[in-house]
């Protein structure tokens, strides 16, 4: 779907991190956790390409003007890293954005009601909030959040308000336990091997470590990847990653945009 969204709010929640709330057409309510949006940050050739962002949250609220009735809203949690995100950071209430989405395959939230654990690294936390809200209905959820320092640990209170038990770790120990989020997660698994599914989003090395651990414990693991994207719909083949059986002769490339961004960790070629 392609639509014009209006900026409701755009707030800096931590140095360099913003929460952008947008109006969206009712049909976007089908968005699943893990799906993403391709955002044209402004109507110009600079920057040229759309920028991909996960869905932080989705809600249908009472809109400002009664006429239009209830309004569907999408939220993005983004980190300012370059040109496009700098343009986003300058948006005001009432500005408009051209958006494509929801795109890609989201997280598989089905299951037997067993315990689910979420692992997020830095801005990788973004898609996990909406996922947590969806999972909570029928299963207990734990969150493991990691980052370089306290500034990278986002919206923890929002997660806790959902009644989720959270384990925070930072490289410099400025918040939570000092160390790697994967270490904390593994320690937890060693005491509670009965976890049903692991959901992870963050830097590639973290996802690789998580998938290794998951494999060792025989726990199904879904990872959400990032890739540099041009089209977002499977046409440019710019965002590919290697599938488990990839060889030069029999290529097994998957599009992060179309076959993902969420993959079963066993589908992928990790080294």
């Amino acid at each position, binding site marked *: *779907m*392609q639509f014009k969204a209006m900026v409701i709010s755009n707030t800096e929640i931590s140095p360099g991190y913003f929460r952008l709330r947008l109006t969206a057409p009712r049909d976007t309510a089908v968005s699943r956790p893990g799906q993403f949006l391709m955002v*044209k940050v402004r109507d110009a*050739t*600079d*920057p*040229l*390409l*759309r920028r991909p962002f996960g869905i932080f949250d989705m809600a249908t609220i009472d809109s400002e003007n009664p006429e239009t009735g209830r309004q569907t809203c999408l939220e993005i949690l983004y980190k300012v890293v370059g040109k496009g995100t700098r343009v986003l950071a300058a948006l005001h209430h009432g500005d408009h954005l*051209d958006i*494509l989405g929801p795109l890609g395959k989201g997280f598989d939230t089905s299951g037997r009601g067993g315990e689910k654990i979420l692992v997020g690294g830095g801005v990788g936390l973004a898609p996990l909030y909406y996922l947590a809200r969806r999972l909570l209905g029928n299963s207990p959820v734990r969150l493991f959040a990691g980052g370089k320092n306290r500034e990278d640990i986002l919206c923890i209170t929002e997660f806790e308000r959902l009644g989720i038990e959270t384990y925070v770790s930072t490289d410099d120990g400025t918040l939570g336990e000092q160390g790697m989020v994967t270490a904390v997660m593994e320690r937890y698994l060693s005491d509670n091997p009965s976890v049903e599914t692991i959901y992870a989003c963050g830097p590639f090395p973290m996802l690789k470590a998580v998938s290794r651990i998951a494999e060792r414990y025989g726990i199904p693991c879904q990872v959400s990847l990032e*890739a*540099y*994207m*041009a*089209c*977002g*719909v*499977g*046409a*440019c*083949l*710019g*965002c*590919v*990653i290697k599938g488990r059986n*990839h060889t*030069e002769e*029999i*290529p097994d*490339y998957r599009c992060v945009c*179309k076959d993902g961004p969420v993959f079963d960790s066993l589908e992928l070629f990790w080294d």
Partner: protein
Amino acid sequence: MTRPDMSVEIAGIKMRNPVMTASGTFGYGSEFVDYMDLESIGAIITKGLSLRPKAGNRTPRIVETPGGMLNAIGLQNVGIEAFIREKIPFLRTVNTPVIVNLYGNSLEEYGELAQRLDKIAEVAGLEVNISCPNVRQGGIVFGTDPKAAYEVVKLVREATIKPVIVKLSPNVTDIVEMAHACEEAGADALSLINTLTGMAIDLQKRRPVLANLTGGLSGPAIKPIALRMVWQVAKAVNLPVIGIGGITSATDALEFIVAGATAVEVGTASFLDPSATQTIAHDMERYLAENGIVSIREMIGTLED
């Protein structure tokens, strides 16, 4: 007011309007069904096809540049077998001409591929991408040497009775010389331009951004170069010319028509807006209507110079 006549014909391929999809920017069509009506445009040109499946290059494969982008996909594609098996069935259901873009790494590959495609009813025509190295001959690029281009086009010409469109590379000193070589070799039409070879560097890493080191520059940034080459070639040859390069609006497309193109291909713009081709075709028709122009064909090559 009667609607303007937007139809054009290229080498016997009848199109409802002059807007086609540029190869490699529209997949095999099916990727765009959720965003546009595939029967609203003139023709679908599919991703560059080779005999055998091709893995393509390592990533990163794309990077944005000022007003454009570099790509080094490495012509990843499913190969002709899978194309026939998996892609043709869908394309058969779309009432829009399908033109297959093809390439090879040797004369033989081009020839064999053309023969295979010649037998496929759903294929309305071939677009030959000659911007590829001839591995058998020290990797000299077919599209940058008139003789090599002549040979490959002649071979394809003899291998098929379907319309043969030759897609020219802009990385040459004299685009008109290349155009003449292809015309003499029996091309039915010429399309230009393919991408310009460029490079992007990651300063901190002191490495090229693209795994392939260099890539092809496309998008609005190259439009002035494309427009100049289309104008030069259209004046020089007696073949229909298809304009390509940085087209993102009906105005852009009509500028190419005025410069001498009979039709256009829209590439990178489909990444910015998946319905770009439909929107451009629609806006072109509106422009003609608003300016009282009866047929798009009246505008071809009407540049005063």
